[in-house]
């Protein structure tokens, strides 16, 4: 090896996972530690911000220490500290961010502020070693549904995004309405496996003349349907409702992605965000992309949900770009893509 390896310590605390990881040269995972709070929040039916922040402060240093230990490195041996500064829950973000800044001040290592959504997109560099910009990205999570062009490692162009509910939010709200435990996405997917996706013809909202999404109408239609069938005691199958709802969302995402592939002529599209773990979406989008002339890349299951590896990967490319943050970096709960 001729060039010195660059080791980035990534830290992530934007929602309900406290995570740290060490990534070498943006493509090699030396360690990946995640402390999840899913069970803590389950009885509340969703993430409680104050409880999430309390869990983060409890776990943040042990998680960072384990990430360094697993990587066989000391803090002095990492080249920079990359941390999520948005978007997310502000109180949760501030724990990881404060820890990262304390580490940076104490060690003299540079600080890199990472956009959580860009991190999700960059998780795909680990799934596909050959992946290089430009490519399309479909970000689908509890808070976001966006289509963007990754023009180079540091330039992102937004094509469209949701105007109301994010796709993952619709999953979570329907799941909650059906009395399924948090997090609702995987529960809907599980239920849908035994259902008929063509049983109910839910609306597939496609706003004309743009790449934007809108899922609140679909969400209301599903809730109305279930409500009405329950009142009528029609004996409808919940599995069918879940499968039909999931199919409607997937159809919209696939159709919009195909339009974007054709409009840009790009040959690769990557899937990112928590909902990218949905197998049905992965399969349908792979097929849809192929039909439109592009190849789908999606992260390995472990990197679909929140993690710090993706923050380390994104941080590596910001390191190469000398995109360092000053020590007054604040959390930005509504940080947009490409900012």
């Amino acid at each position: 090896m001729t060039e010195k390896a660059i080791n980035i310590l990534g830290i992530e605390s934007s929602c309900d996972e406290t995570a740290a990881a060490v990534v070498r040269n943006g493509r090699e995972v030396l360690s990946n530690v995640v402390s999840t709070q899913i069970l803590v929040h389950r009885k509340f039916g969703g993430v409680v911000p104050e409880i999430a922040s309390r869990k983060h402060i409890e776990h943040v240093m042990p998680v960072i220490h384990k990430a360094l230990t697993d990587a066989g490195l000391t803090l002095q041996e990492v080249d920079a500290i990359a941390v999520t500064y948005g978007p997310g829950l502000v109180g949760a973000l501030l724990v990881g961010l404060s820890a990262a800044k304390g580490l940076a001040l104490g060690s003299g290592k540079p600080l890199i502020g990472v956009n959580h959504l860009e991190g999700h997109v960059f998780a795909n560099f680990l799934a596909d070693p050959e992946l290089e910009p430009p490519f399309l990205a479909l970000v689908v999570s509890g808070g976001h549904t966006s289509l963007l062009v990754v023009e180079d490692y540091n330039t992102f162009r937004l094509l469209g995004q949701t105007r109301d509910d994010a796709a993952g939010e619709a999953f979570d709200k329907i799941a909650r309405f059906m009395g399924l435990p948090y997090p609702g996405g995987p529960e809907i997917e599980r239920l849908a496996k035994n259902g008929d996706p063509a049983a109910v013809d839910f609306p597939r909202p496609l706003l004309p003349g743009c790449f934007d999404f809108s899922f609140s109408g679909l969400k209301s239609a599903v809730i109305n349907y279930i409500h009405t069938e329950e009142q009528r005691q029609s004996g409808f199958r919940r599995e069918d409702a879940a499968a039909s709802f999931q199919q409607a969302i997937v159809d919209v995402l696939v159709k919009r992605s195909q339009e974007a592939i054709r409009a840009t002529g790009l040959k690769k599209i990557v899937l990112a965000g928590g909902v990218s773990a949905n197998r049905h979406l992965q399969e349908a989008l792979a097929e849809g992309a192929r039909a439109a002339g592009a190849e789908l890349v999606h992260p390995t299951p472990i990197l679909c949900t929140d993690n710090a590896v993706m923050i380390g990967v994104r941080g590596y490319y910001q390191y190469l770009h000398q995109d360092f943050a000053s020590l007054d970096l604040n959390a930005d709960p509504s940080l947009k893509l490409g900012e």
Partner: protein
Amino acid sequence: MKNWPGLSWPRRAGKVENVLTLGIDTATRVCSVAVCDNNKILGSLEVNVGLTHSEGLVPQLETLLKLARVEKEQLELIAVSRGPGSFTGLRIGMATAEAMAYALDLPLVAVDTLEAIAYNLPVAGVRLIPVLDAQKGNLYVGSYRWEKDRLVETEPVRIAAAQDLAAQLQAGEGPAILMGECHRVPGTDNCGQVTLAPESARLPRGSSAAILGAAQYVPGGDLHAYFGMDPFYIRRSEAEELWEKRHPEGR
């Protein structure tokens, strides 16, 4: 009161003479940091203009060390104010302090915020009552008294309705000095027993956290003993309180 402040603090076994300590207090709107060589305050930097600690704390620490001519590698101990206070403020201070301690291989001690405030005022023969906002018209209330040259907690930290406090203190024995966020206590004008601490001694100070922390510090033991440490919240989250109200049968 002789040997103020701190040198005559009761010694613990193995206590070292001089500990270069960095003190951090972000429990309130004040962001106060100080570096102390045991009882000597080498530098202290306080900002109280409502800036977010998330932005200001780390640059403030950097400036403090530079102005006080202290290399961060020279530090021997970090002391952080652990609450009660603003939940988010406490976490910013604690996460920063823990991470600095980790990066510099330093021990970390956490001190009670209200005790550190009482420590600002070396006045014997009075009840020192530091108070901080506990939301919804409530206050966190501490009760301390100097006995010889020791600061003693006379009542555990409690939560009280702000509007009742002045009368409670008036009914108590001997003069009382309100400290902390005194402006949140109404009706003190009519209470002859109750006075307000001067502005200069009223609010949390990083130097008091540092000096108290150094006095509490016992060398040796696990360097990472602070792993898993929580702020001193006193209150549970609102969501938990509500959930327990709705589920009296328990978990």
